[in-house]
């Protein structure tokens, strides 16, 4: 019998209680993992969107509460095109529409000559002409989940379109949505003369940083440039809020799990006071008693991490079965995220086990042997 076997045997003695504690911790781990997978995926998609296709950075309205609500007059687009160092500036309009059962279907309006610039690769069919009023390109994921093909007609928010091609950009939001002519989307949404964002590519000799700064200097409090997810937080305040909420939920879940471990281990130590006294009497050192109890709480945490990983991955993949989620959520699996969740679980095990283990190691053999 090894020390590890002894730890497992001890856990098995109170299997129901330890299983419930384990489930409590695994719920926390699953929450962290699920939120992390979705958040990381969101940030990856956002990063890809900000540098869509060949663009070096994006511009949105500095006052917009979220990118989706950004408004920039098209006259500014012309001004930006004329700035030194700007090789190309492309206006983009986007909105959410209802398509089939999905209320968050992403519609993106661009000029057809800018399609390649924003990263659209046609895998089927052809692009739409600039003045086309009812032609649309469907993203690969959107076409797949709606089971539609090029040539078919579809109705989006009450308006009929003909799918002329299928594309792929590699970005989950874009591939889950559709592209149409900028003029058509502007007219339909009554947003003539407006775009939501501008994608900018600088000339080879110009510095991205310098051009971006120049634009912000020219339009203070009006336009803001974003090259990365970090920079985008100036506008995408919701990202910070989402992060904070996800941390708060995770911490709460872990606090509850941690208290569960603490409670379980304190009970175990009380119930086994006499037994711990015997171990001390036969020569076990304090640190071995400490290790025994800590080992038990860490074993609970480790098993909980395993169960939590499975539950978290299953939960987010279950979420993706919902039609609207497919075009909005991309999961970003990363080793650091799993290691972080594992580390937090072990931290909970350690935090919950430390006090009971210390208490156990202070038990004196004589006091314990008198204990009934």
């Amino acid at each position, binding site marked *: 019998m090894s020390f590890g076997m002894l730890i497992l045997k001890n856990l098995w003695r109170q299997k129901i209680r330890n299983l419930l504690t384990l489930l409590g911790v695994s719920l926390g781990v699953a929450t962290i993992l699920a939120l992390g997978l979705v958040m990381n995926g969101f940030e990856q998609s956002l990063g890809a969107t900000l540098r869509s296709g060949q663009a070096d950075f994006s511009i949105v309205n500095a006052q917009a509460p979220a990118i989706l609500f950004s408004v920039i007059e098209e006259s500014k687009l012309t001004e930006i095109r004329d700035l030194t160092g700007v090789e190309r500036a492309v206006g983009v309009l986007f909105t959410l529409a209802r398509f089939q059962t999905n209320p968050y279907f992403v519609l993106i309006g661009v000029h057809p000559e800018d399609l390649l610039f924003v990263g659209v690769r046609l895998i089927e069919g052809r692009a739409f002409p600039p003045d086309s009023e009812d032609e649309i390109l469907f993203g690969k994921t959107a076409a797949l989940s709606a089971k539609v093909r090029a040539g078919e007609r579809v109705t989006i928010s009450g308006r009929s379109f003909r799918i002329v091609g299928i594309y792929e950009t590699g970005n989950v939001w874009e591939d889950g949505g559709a592209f149409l002519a900028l003029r058509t989307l502007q007219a339909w949404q009554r947003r003539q003369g407006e775009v939501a964002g501008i994608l900018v590519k600088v000339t080879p000799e110009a510095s991205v940083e310098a051009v971006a700064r120049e634009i912000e200097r020219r339009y203070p409090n009006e336009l803001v440039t974003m090259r990365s997810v970090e920079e985008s937080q100036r506008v995408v305040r919701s990202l910070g809020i989402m992060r904070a909420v996800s941390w708060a939920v995770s911490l709460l879940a872990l606090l509850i799990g941690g208290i569960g471990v603490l409670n379980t281990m304190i009970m175990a130590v009380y119930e086994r006071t006499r037994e711990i006294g015997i171990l001390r009497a036969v020569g076990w050192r304090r640190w*071995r008693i400490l290790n025994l109890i800590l080992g038990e709480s860490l074993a609970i945490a480790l098993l909980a991490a395993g169960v939590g990983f499975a539950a978290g991955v299953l939960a987010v993949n279950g979420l993706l079965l919902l039609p609207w989620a497919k075009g909005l959520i991309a999961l970003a699996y990363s080793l650091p995220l799993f290691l972080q969740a594992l580390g937090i679980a072990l931290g909970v095990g350690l935090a919950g086990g430390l006090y009971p283990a210390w208490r156990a190691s202070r038990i004196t053999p004589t006091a314990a042997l008198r204990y009934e």
Partner: protein
Amino acid sequence: MSEPIVIIENLLKTYEQGRTQALQGVSLQIERGEFVAICGPSGSGKSTLLNMIGALDHPDSGRIWVAGTDLSERRDFSDFRARVVGFVFQLHNLIPTLTALENVLIPMFELGISKRKARERALGLLQRVGLDGKSHRLPAELSGGERQRVAVARALANDPQIALADEPTGNLDSKSAEQVLELLTEINRQRGTTLILVTHDEAIAKRADRIMQIRDGQIISS
């Protein structure tokens, strides 16, 4: 008789902030290989004295040396307990979820011996106490006498210089009591293990080389 293995000088121990005087200036010597019975009524301080010799408890004052170790110091004596002494309690005090074999293995964790060697030694000890067929039984599946014999095997797991037995037959029927006593005596005779046995039963005490009578925390004859 060769050299003293236990030397105690003027040992004092009080409990409950001095209200209970468990030991009031006990002095004694026990030779290596001796079988000593400490005899006295309940509350006379005999278990306290045994706990001091086994380093389960600290004296308030006085000096105590056991197998060359000064136990009067205020420090943790786990290592001493792991290597020098073996305990048999009145209640068997086995761990209920561990088999007989595993209970005997428990003290060997501190000895740094290989798993295979520990297992061999434990099986040998169980054979010696006559339980070789029952090594995989839990304490609840054993009779009272068998449990106490497992406890004897556990006390011998570290091959101790001194075996300390506190009323080891107190909870046993006369047949089982006889078996356990014979076992302890045999260990003392064959292995030369010093045996210190606490009892209130004069008949049991008579088997010892020497009887120490203790009353109200003082040795009145030895």
